[in-house]
């Protein structure tokens, strides 16, 4: 077991709220300087897991350690070694930018001799130079989020937990945010980040796909795309889409179908044999076919395919 100050080790973690199982027997480990992504839809148990790791919730069962410290017994010690950015904005809107920074610097006991430099760094990182005296509530979401990140890492913690840091943020700011995350990781910080944006998941070093409290798959984005699909992927562009959707699933060799934009992604066993069969079936129904060709899967394909497989295994409708 890895006991380093950068590690997060989770074994059989379970959290129940009454009858509802929010996190179900989850196990994983992170490495130093890694961007560890927690990917899943809303309500999958991402925030609950992060909150347990930050010592804000007690697990129902299982064990978890952060920076080599037990989350149940040593939560207070953990807090000095982590930075946490909650899903909901949680800085003080009625304080100025510098007042928020100074407050959290005080709570994290940032030494006086580096305080000024750290605050300057945070202001610059958040792009708030010249607006230090602005009330935090008056800032746009993107700046608020970056300021929140600044407050959370003023004390240079070895592990940072970011719960959906880019939700509600414009694409440019999202990109800037991910650059910050990469910078921190390059400096050796372990970044634990949750998201429901599939494209963001590609930026992670390692990923856990989580759905309804359970881990569905784990690995690097490349590994996941290569190994987790139960078959190959065909890209089908045809018109009208609605009719095509009725035809494609019943073609022999098609395992699963999902709509992406105005195209269909079909998971098939044996792309070479299935593609002509799909084309023929569509043309037989007078549906215009533009393209039927194999494509490399995206993480979204992986996720849809895995959760669909799980649904059919458990006898639920997809």
């Amino acid at each position: 077991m890895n006991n380093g100050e950068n590690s997060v080790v989770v074994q059989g973690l379970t959290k129940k709220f009454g009858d509802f199982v929010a996190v179900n027997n989850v196990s994983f480990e992170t490495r130093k300087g890694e961007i560890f992504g927690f990917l899943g839809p809303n309500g999958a148990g991402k925030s609950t897991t992060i909150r347990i790791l930050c010592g804000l919730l007690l697990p129902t069962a299982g064990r978890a350690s952060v920076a080599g410290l037990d989350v149940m017994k040593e939560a207070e010690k953990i807090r000095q070694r982590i930075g946490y950015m909650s899903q909901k904005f949680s800085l003080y809107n009625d304080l100025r930018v510098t007042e928020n920074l100074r407050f959290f610097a005080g709570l994290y006991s940032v030494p006086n001799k580096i305080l000024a430099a750290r605050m300057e760094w945070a202001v610059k990182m958040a792009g708030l130079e010249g607006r230090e005296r602005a009330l935090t509530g008056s800032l746009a979401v993107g700046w608020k989020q970056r300021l929140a990140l600044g407050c959370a890492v003023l004390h240079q913690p070895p592990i940072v937990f970011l719960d959906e840091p880019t939700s509600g943020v414009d694409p440019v700011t999202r990109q800037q945010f991910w650059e910050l995350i990469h910078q921190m990781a390059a400096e050796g910080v372990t970044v634990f980040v949750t998201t429901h944006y599939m494209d963001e998941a590609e930026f992670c070093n390692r990923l856990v796909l989580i759905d309804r409290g359970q881990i569905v798959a784990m690995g690097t984005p490349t590994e996941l795309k290569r190994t987790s699909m139960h078959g190959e992927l065909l890209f089908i562009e045809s018109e009208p889409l609605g009719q095509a959707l009725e035809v494609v699933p019943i073609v022999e060799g098609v395992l699963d179908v999902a709509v992406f934009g105005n195209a269909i992604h079909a998971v098939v066993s044996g792309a070479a044999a299935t593609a002509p069969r799909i084309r023929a079936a569509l043309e037989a129904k007078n549906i215009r076919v533009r393209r039927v060709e194999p494509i490399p899967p995206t993480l979204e394909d992986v996720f849809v395919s895995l959760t669909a497989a799980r649904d059919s295994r458990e006898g639920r409708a997809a």
Partner: protein
Amino acid sequence: MSPARIFAMMRKEITQVLRDPRSLLVILLMPVMQLVIYGYAVNLDVNHIPLCVYDRDDTQTSQELIKRFQATDYFTIVHVAHDYPDVLHQIDSGVATTAIVIPSQFDETLRSSGKAGVQLLIDASDSNSANVAMGYAQSIIQSYSSDILVDWEQQHGLPATGGGTVQFQARTWYNEDLESMANIVPGVVAMVMAVVGSFLTSLTIAREWERGTMEMLISTPVSALEIQIGKLVPYFFIGVMDTTLCAVMGVWWFGVPFRGSWIVMFSTSALFLTVVLSLGYYFSVVAKSQMAASQLAMLATFLPTFLLSGFLFPIDQMPKPVQWLSVILPARYYVEILRSVFLKGTSISLMTGQIVALTIISVILIALATRAFHKRLE
């Protein structure tokens, strides 16, 4: 415990209070408003009772008696009647609530027999005021008649105030003029402190939950106790400021005497503030909503202090169960202490009972508040 973290909490709280107009209003205006409203409205003194005079004798002697009524602040002559129905009309219409009727031959009867009666009519629809008016009138007439007696004795060559006449003289202590203001102001101070103190702290924790700032706060190394101290200390100083404001207003504006020591006043006020601030903080922790917490704080301080602290109604006149209930009411002890400090100047050694009671209550409340708050989301 880290002084730096407590300091960071305190600085943040003060900044937020100073930036919030509503908080400032509660801190500065509420004490002044309450003191003025209760100071004037809850005035139990009966002064300038409207009096109707009907002098059927119209001699120097009867005029002398009427002058006595005129000379006090207790009565104001609003009407001089010329017949009896007129007197009744004045009372019925409410122009006068008291009437004095001096019979004809008042002077003559007095001279011949040494005894004469006057009629006093009092509108007793407000029984309290009627009693007071009766008391005032009796004492005026009594002092007048004893003076007459001395005159009479001297004129008849008798030794003055002889013959075993008992001179009865009542003396009131501490509040010599029997002004209810002097009695009320210490009570109002206690009430303002209780309401303002518990109201302000009832918002602190609940506000962090409502605005979502609590989640980030409890993810930092700051401990529950550091949060509690960091949040209560600024309000403690605000409370001390409000106490001073109330006391100074009481003395300078309402003319209440201040006979005790300021040290006793501030040390006991500090104790009472600890009680009410902890109470508000406890509600804030338990309720998690500003609305619910502040209402609980109001409910727990306003009416009990108003009705049961002895501020308006003497505790020893209350039914036994209510008296027992008032034992757990911190304001009761603080009102007793403040009355002693303002009116009697009693030494602190005579307030041991009240101080011990307040200490016990504050320890219990601090413990409750500390135990109730956890750095968890559940």
